[in-house]
């Protein structure tokens, strides 16, 4: 065994605590790298598989012969296959049934598929009805769907001069990406096709385009006959669009850069701590002939050797963590009936990338300590580290604060702080760590809080206004013991147009809402009221501002009421309204249920006013709807109320937003889990760095502290002195880090446009959290320092290290 390896192994064995601490610090960084890379790979494959399932495959060999299809299938390159038969185009016999846009040319592709292929290729596109199950059933594209072309109706086509009748069984979305030609889709008629299309998913996911081209060329298929699932290939980084590829990889690169910086600081601190503590030994080795190169080699080898168990630990925790998170999220998807399955993908690529990443970061982090170690002079060993630090005259000069300080320990602490040669390095580390923590956690929190969370109400009911219906509705709501809040209003199909000079609202149409007299008096003080909501205003620089729709508090002037009917006849009803109040929705308790803060607002008048205003227009009674919004105490029991309402009001439009929002809510939860995981790991790295830093300084000073003790300074006094020094450092790091972190957060939020800049607040919670953590570390530091000081052998430390 080489002498350098032996020296390192002996050091690891005899300095177990330091070795374990370094491995753990490195393992935190490795865990983050592994989690990000494995997580990214899993997301990549999840989206790839979703795209693949949504279209039925990745490569399509279009318009090929049956022989070519058989040869391709025999090649054994594919994980899954599907095919369709393209028949001669047909014409609709009844041209009148065509929507205007499709009348010319009356020419439709018709595709035949077997039951298995229909399930694979068409089922994901199905919009209504069911897939054709017999040769007489046909599926039409949604743009052909009309009053005349509906499920259950007959469709007669002219194929090769012969009429054929089909029954429409459903529609499919012709605008979704897929390999099925837009046209009519029917069950396989067992006829000879004009051509066939083979849609495949290759077994090997690398260089899919090249594989396809090779297969095409081997089977006399031209490149023009190939088409690809571009969305799936994009996720595999095989898009032909360089910009998209850059976008995909820059996302992971940004994450890795953030983790890289944090990991670099953490690993650097750990290695630096070891190097500083071993300075005397390095000097000794230099004195007996170790060259600077050998010493650098020693430090690099030490770092890389420790990175190996750290990486293994990182694999274990990172992969385990991601696997656990994916399993829990998949359970959540199943529970919420979300058609989504996250794939857990651990293959060689993320594992190898994580290993390379860790080794690079470790080498980078070890570079400066290794160079410093190689510069250790033999005299350092001989003089037992008693070399004077290089201090400038400015550092030696006593400040006014020090001059006027009468407490000796405080004075000594201030002097030590001022003359600490490592102060700048430590301050930079501390500031960077605090800044990274504040900026990224604030940004991630902002992303989470701005994630879509669905509408305000859990259930909404819209039906034609009728007094008996309203009574029945109120009764159902009263009887249910699951109602948290409810609001019933009347919404007209009349729009109110106001002329307002100030604010972004000029010319805005507002829906007209009526409430009963009692509510009008209680909630609106008998004044016609505009519910003021917020909108985003965008400026040329790309900055977005969140602003109230109406800048004023009152409106007095003309209001033009229009209905759909009047729009077409151009006879609006213009009236003057006295003193319309403009009230922010935030002040109208209970109304947020139906009027979200970023919704369009409304003009509220009383039912009486409504009748007075519109009596001359003879507006039909059914032009006003009854609208109810409900939030539930127990959201899991939403089905029971929905069913009760559906049963009582079969013609009402009942919107169960809990069911509708299940997917977006689940995706929002997934986002939260990912962001919180990232925050947790980042916080852990920040915390480990600060702890490492603080204690490295303490261990380095042990000899000097022993000297102070030897001249009669008590452990309590030394602890106090160190706490002052450390506290000053932490306060400065916290202050500067908070300013820089807030600035980075502001810039990140501005660039990402997640939240308008005028609503961005100082990340007080994160700044306070960083402060509290630093205070806690400071307290632990004081306790440990006192313990070390009362237990250390002063004689040994003074004589030799």
């Amino acid at each position, binding site marked *: 065994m080489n*002498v350098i390896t*032996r*020296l390192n192994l*002996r*050091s690891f*064995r*005899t*300095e177990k605590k330091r070795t374990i601490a370094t491995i753990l610090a490195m393992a935190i960084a490795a865990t983050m790298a592994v989690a990000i890379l494995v997580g990214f790979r899993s997301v990549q494959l999840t989206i790839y598989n979703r795209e693949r399932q949504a279209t039925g495959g990745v490569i399509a060999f279009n318009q090929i012969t049956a022989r070519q299809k058989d040869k391709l299938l025999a090649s054994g390159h594919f994980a899954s296959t599907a095919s369709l038969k393209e028949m001669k185009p047909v014409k609709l016999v009844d041209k009148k049934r065509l929507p205007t846009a499709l009348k010319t040319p009356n020419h439709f592709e018709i595709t035949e598929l077997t039951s298995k292929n229909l399930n694979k290729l068409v089922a994901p596109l199905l919009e209504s009805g069911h897939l054709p199950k017999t040769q007489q059933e046909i599926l039409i594209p949604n743009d052909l769907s009309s009053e005349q072309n509906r499920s259950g109706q007959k469709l007669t086509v002219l194929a090769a001069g012969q009429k054929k009748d089909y029954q429409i069984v459903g529609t499919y979305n012709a605008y979704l990406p897929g390999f099925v030609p837009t046209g009519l889709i029917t069950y396989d008629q067992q006829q000879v096709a004009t051509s066939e299309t083979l849609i495949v998913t290759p077994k090997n996911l690398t260089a899919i385009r090249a594989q396809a081209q090779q297969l095409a060329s081997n089977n006399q298929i031209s490149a023009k006959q190939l088409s690809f699932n571009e969305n799936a290939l994009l996720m595999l980084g095989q898009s032909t669009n360089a910009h998209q590829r850059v976008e995909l990889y820059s996302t992971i690169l940004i994450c890795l850069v953030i983790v890289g910086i944090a990991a670099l600081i953490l690993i650097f601190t750990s290695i630096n701590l070891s190097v500083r503590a071993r300075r005397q*030994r390095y000097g*000794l*080795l*230099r*004195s*007996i*002939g*170790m*060259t*600077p*190169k*050998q010493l650098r080699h020693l430090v690099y080898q030490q770092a890389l050797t420790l990175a190996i168990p750290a990486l293994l630990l990182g694999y274990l925790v990172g992969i385990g963590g991601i696997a656990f998170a994916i399993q829990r999220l998949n359970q959540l998807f199943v529970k919420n009936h979300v058609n989504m399955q996250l794939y857990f993908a651990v293959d060689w690529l993320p594992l190898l990338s994580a290993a390379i990443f860790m080794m690079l970061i470790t080498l980078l982090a070890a570079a400066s300590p290794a160079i410093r170690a190689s510069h250790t*002079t*033999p*005299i350092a*060993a*001989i003089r*037992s580290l008693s070399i*004077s630090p290089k201090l400038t005259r400015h550092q030696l000069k006593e400040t006014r604060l020090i001059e006027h300080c009468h407490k000796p320990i405080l004075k000594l602490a201030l002097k030590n702080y001022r003359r600490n040669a490592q102060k700048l390095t430590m301050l930079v580390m501390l500031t960077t760590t605090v800044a990274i923590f504040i900026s990224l956690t604030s940004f991630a929190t902002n992303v989470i809080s701005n994630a879509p969370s669905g509408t305000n109400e859990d259930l909404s009911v819209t039906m034609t206004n009728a007094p008996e219906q309203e009574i029945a509705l109120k009764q159902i709501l009263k009887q249910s013991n699951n109602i948290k809040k409810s609001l019933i209003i009347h919404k007209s199909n009349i729009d109110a147009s106001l002329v307002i000079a100030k604010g972004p609202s000029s010319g805005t149409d507002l829906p007209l809402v009526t409430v009963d007299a009692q509510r009008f008096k209680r909630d609106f003080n008998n004044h016609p009221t505009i519910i003021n909501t917020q909108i985003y205003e965008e400026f040329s620089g790309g900055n977005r501002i969140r602003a109230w729709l109406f800048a004023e508090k009152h409106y007095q002037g003309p209001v033009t009421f229009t209905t759909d009917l009047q729009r077409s006849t151009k006879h609006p009803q213009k009236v003057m309204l006295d003193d319309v109040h403009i009230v922010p929705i935030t002040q109208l308790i209970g109304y947020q249920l139906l009027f979200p803060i970023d919704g369009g607002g409304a003009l509220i008048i009383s039912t009486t006013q409504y009748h007075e205003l519109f009596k001359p227009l003879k507006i039909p009674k059914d032009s006003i709807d009854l609208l109810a919004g409900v939030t539930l105490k127990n959201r899991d029991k939403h089905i029971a109320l929905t069913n009760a309402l559906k049963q009582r009001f079969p013609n009402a439009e009942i919107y169960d937003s809990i069911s509708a929002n299940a997917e977006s809510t689940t995706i929002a939860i997934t986002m939260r889990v990912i962001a919180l995981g990232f925050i947790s790991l980042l916080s852990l790295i920040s915390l480990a760095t600060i702890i490492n830093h603080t204690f490295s300084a303490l261990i380095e000073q042990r000899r000097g502290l022993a000297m102070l003790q030897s001249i009669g300074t008590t452990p309590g006094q030394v602890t106090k002195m160190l706490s002052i020094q450390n506290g000053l450092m932490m306060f400065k790091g916290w202050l500067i880090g908070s300013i820089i972190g807030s600035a980075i957060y502001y810039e990140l939020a501005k660039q990402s446009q997640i939240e308008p800049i005028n609503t961005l607040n100082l990340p007080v919670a994160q700044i306070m959290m960083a402060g509290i953590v630093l205070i806690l570390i400071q307290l632990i530091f004081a306790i440990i320092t006192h313990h070390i000081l009362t237990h250390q052998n002063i004689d040994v430390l003074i*004589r*030799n290290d």
Partner: protein
Amino acid sequence: MEILTASHLSKQYPGEQNLALDDINLAVTAGEFLAIVGPSGSGKSTLLHLLGGVDRPSSGSVKLYHTDIYALNETKLAIFRRRQVGLIYQFYNLIPNLTVTENITLPTELDGQKVEQTRLEQILATLGLSDKRNALPGQLSGGQQQRVAIGRALINQPAVVLADEPTGNLDQRNSQEIMQLLHAANIKQGQTIILITHDPLIAQQASRVITIEDGQMKETR
């Protein structure tokens, strides 16, 4: 034959007005046992470190076998040190996590050379450490640790052994044992030795004694 010469050697530490060493001229012949004496802070250790290529002078030169050691770069100087200079310190300065054998053979191994087992056995036997070969420095007495340091200094058969108060931390019996070992190396193997000491009895055992006072050298005997 002169193997080590120091010409106009001066050393001034940064921020200090006085010279630690002032124009020292010294020649050491092969096989000589030279003792350097002088009061604390007189510059003895500084001279020793300059002679061994451990520290760099402010001016002047040191030649060992006609090689100006300070004209060498850091790497060559380190290689030169491990092959031509053996250092013995007052506080032994052994690597605490290496055994006796490993500490002794370290300079040879750092040089990429294979350790000659017969030479190692001979050294261990001479030092009386054969039964302690696998012990760690922490398991040895002060005298034993200093013997390990002597073994480490002698393993590569250097041109010169520099000993900075090697007995300063030992009792009289151990001091005598260490001196006997150094004498044996000097007489039997012709090893050139330069030793710093405060003890007049130790200095008397050297073939030549020089005194350093306020950075200046006086030939005493």
